[in-house]
Each structure stands twice: as C-alpha cells, then as structure tokens.
C-alpha cells in the first residue's frame, strides 16, 4: 500500500471526527462522502478481509475464542438413577484397595479406586464403543492412570482424562459391551499413584448425544459431557490375599475383596 493510500483513511477519519468548525454540517457531509468514495475504491479482496476482521473483532464481547461454558451439573445422591442417553447409571459407593481381587496385580505405590454402581442399557442395540467406560469420570483426584497399565499418571488438573476399566461385580469379568435391557452391578476401576487415597471423591456422570460424526459419517452416542455429579466418601479395604497364604500383619485374610 502506498503512503498516500495509508494517509487517506487517516485524514478521512480525522475529518469525520473533528470537522472544521464553522459550516460543520456541510463539512460532515463532505467527509462522509469522501469516506464512502474511499471505501468504494478499495479492492474487493481488501474489503472482504476487513469485513472478516471486523466480524472476528465483534466476537470479543461475546466470549471470543474461549470454550463455551457447560450447562450446570445436577447434584445427585447415591443410588439415584441418572439417565445418560444409552445407559441408566447409579453410583452406590467408593472403595480403595491395593489389590481388589485375584485378577488384579498388587499395587506397591498406590491403590485401585473402585466406584461401584449399576448400569442398565437402554439403547436398542449393544453398546460396544466404550460408552460404559465414558459414562463415569473422577474429578480433582491426583495421580490417576490415564488407562490401565499404561503407567501414565495424570496431574490433578487432568483427572477427567483418566478412563476407567469396567468390571461386572458378579463374576469379576471385564465389561467391554452393554447389551439392551439388562442391569448389571459394575465397578468402574482406576489405578492411582499416591501414598493414600482421598477421603472423598467427586464422581461425575457423563451424558451422550446421538449424532453423526462428520469426519467418517459414523452415527452413535458421542460427546460425553458431565451432566450430574455426587461426592462420596472413600472406604479403604484390605487387599486380597491368596487363600492359604500367610497374611501380612497389615492385611486381612478375607479373599475376593471386590466389594
């Protein structure tokens, strides 16, 4: 852009703002006319770029590029049914254990956190895409493992990114899918690297949206978002000990401590 073209809009702005004293209305009309002529003379690409920049600037009073705020979460109580979309969930209790059962490796530098509850599939088809694991998250807990046996322990600010592994309580087997119209007693399990578990935990229940994903046209239950939460105390239980083994002074000989 030449120096003359840069000065021209500044001169016009000054004329529009200040005017010239006597005969101001005549000068104002002349200033506006010159401004219109000046804008009209701009190349179309330049006008389009300025309009785009103006639209971006106008977003500032409306939040700009900040994340949209989530709707407030409902506070629920233990055993209260929370509808997430494809799953009806209840949360009953939280336990901490260094070895909840035979199928779990003993933890030396932390403990397992087990959130017990129930899950009932209300969708018509079998849920096979991790919806059951995404239905529950723990907030504000330091040292949660991102997912089982990855040894990637997260800071407290990223606790919501830790994905649990879900077990059926009745037979301690993995719950990788949820069929319609069956209610299971389940445990959502995390590994935590910490000297001791928290005294209480804020458990968040996430709801889903049924929509099509634009990237690959997959249609399913997407966008897990916290919709309800409750705070429950954490009860520490003794670790599982192999029957017949000599219990350590700190451990109870009671087996299958998954409850």
């Amino acid at each position: 852009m030449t120096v003359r073209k840069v000065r021209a809009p500044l001169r016009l702005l000054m004329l529009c703002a200040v005017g010239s004293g006597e005969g101001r209305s005549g000068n104002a009309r002349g200033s506006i006319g010159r401004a219109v002529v000046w804008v009209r003379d701009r190349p179309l690409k330049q006008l389009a770029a300025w309009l785009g920049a103006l639209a971006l600037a106008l977003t500032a009073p409306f939040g700009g590029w900040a994340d949209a705020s989530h709707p407030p979460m409902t506070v629920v109580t233990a055993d209260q049914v929370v509808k997430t979309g494809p799953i009806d969930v209840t949360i009953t209790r939280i336990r901490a254990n260094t070895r909840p059962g035979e199928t779990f490796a003993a933890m030396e530098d932390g403990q397992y956190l087990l959130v017990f509850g129930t899950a009932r599939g209300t969708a018509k088809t079998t849920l096979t895409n991790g919806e059951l694991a995404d239905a529950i998250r723990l907030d504000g807990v330091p040292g949660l493992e991102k997912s089982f046996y990855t040894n990637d322990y997260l800071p407290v600010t990223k606790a919501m990114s830790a994905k649990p592994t879900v077990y059926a309580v009745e037979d301690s087997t993995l719950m990788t899918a949820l069929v319609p119209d069956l209610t299971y007693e389940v445990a959502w399990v995390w590994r935590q690297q910490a000297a001791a578990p928290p005294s209480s935990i804020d458990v968040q229940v996430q709801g889903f949206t049924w929509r099509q994903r634009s990237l690959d046209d997959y249609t399913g239950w997407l966008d897990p978002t916290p919709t309800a939460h409750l705070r429950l105390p954490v009860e520490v239980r003794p670790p599982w000990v192999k029957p017949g083994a000599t219990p350590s002074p700190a451990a109870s000989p009671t087996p299958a401590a998954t409850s």
Partner: protein
Amino acid sequence: MSAADVWRRWLGGRGRSLGAGVLILASLAVGRVITDRLPDAESVIEKPIERRGVIGTPIALRIGDVTVTEVTGATSWASVSEGKRTQGVWLAASIDLLPSRRESGLSYAAVRDSSGHVWELGRGESTCKAPIAGVPMHCQVLIELPRRPISNAELVLRWTNFDDRFDDQAVLPLTLDQATIDTWAGTEGPIKVPLATLGDS
C-alpha cells in the same frame, strides 16, 4: 455523474466476482437441501445379504456352510480359561462350520427381534475362529439376553463384526418365549464351552 451511475459503475467493475460468489453459495445450499432430502442409497446397497435357514439345516455363506445343531441356555457358562454368570440368561448355540476359504469363522453372532433390539456377543464368546479351509469345525457362540420373552427372535451369524458391507449372514428363527426363558433361568449350569474341535467326529 449521478450517484446511481457511480454505483452502477462500481458494481459493474466487481459484479462478475460478486455474482460468481453468490451463484456458488446458492448452488451449495441447493445441493445440501437435495442430498438431505433424498434417501441414503449406500446403506441399502451395502446391507448384508441374508441367507435364511432353520436349526439343523446347513446355510451356505460365502465363508462356508453353517449349521446350527442345537440352542440351549442357562445362567452361567465355563470355558477352559474363564466363566461368566448373568442376571439374565446365556443363549448357547452349537454350530457345525465347514469353511470354504482360509479367511473364515464366525466372529459376529447376535439375537435380534422385530422391534430393532440387537443383542450382540458382548460379554459372550464365539469359539468359531481360526478354522482350516475344508476341515469341519464344531464350535459354539454364547450371547447374553435379558430374562424376558423376545418375540420374533432371530439368530444372526456372520464372518466378522468389523465390516458388514456387501457380506452375507445366516439368519435362523428362534423360539424365546416365556417357557423357554424360564427354563433357562432355572438352569444354573454352567454350560460347558470347550475349545472348538476339528474333523468329522
């Protein structure tokens, strides 16, 4: 020169660009409306072909001949490596599979009803895997069902659960009335689930 002439000259200079832009946007909008209104042809064309049969008769799929020899149920099952219980019932289908090609097997098994419910393998199991082309295989599939009658129930068996486009699947009618479900719910089991066996025996 009047203001109208000035604007006419301004538009005349830029009219082609503006007009082209407007036409492109209008075409995109009209195209979007049309594609949203028309039915999705791909989902119809790609749907798996259904080969119907009954228990005891072979059904010819592209991966081989599938014969469901027996359907039973109980509240638990046990294999060589694990066992599972349920608050519902476990449906166990015994299958004879004669694979026609190297890539064969039955990794997809489901029970569906006329209301759109589909109960897939989920926590269940299929031992109909890794067969040998031309060698008969005797195997099982186990599917978890709720403890209630399922009207117009059908058993669906297919090679894979990853991609069903243009594939074929075996479909058999099932009788899952109250009496059957009650019998299975009263059977503690466990249903024995051995490894799949090969050969004619």
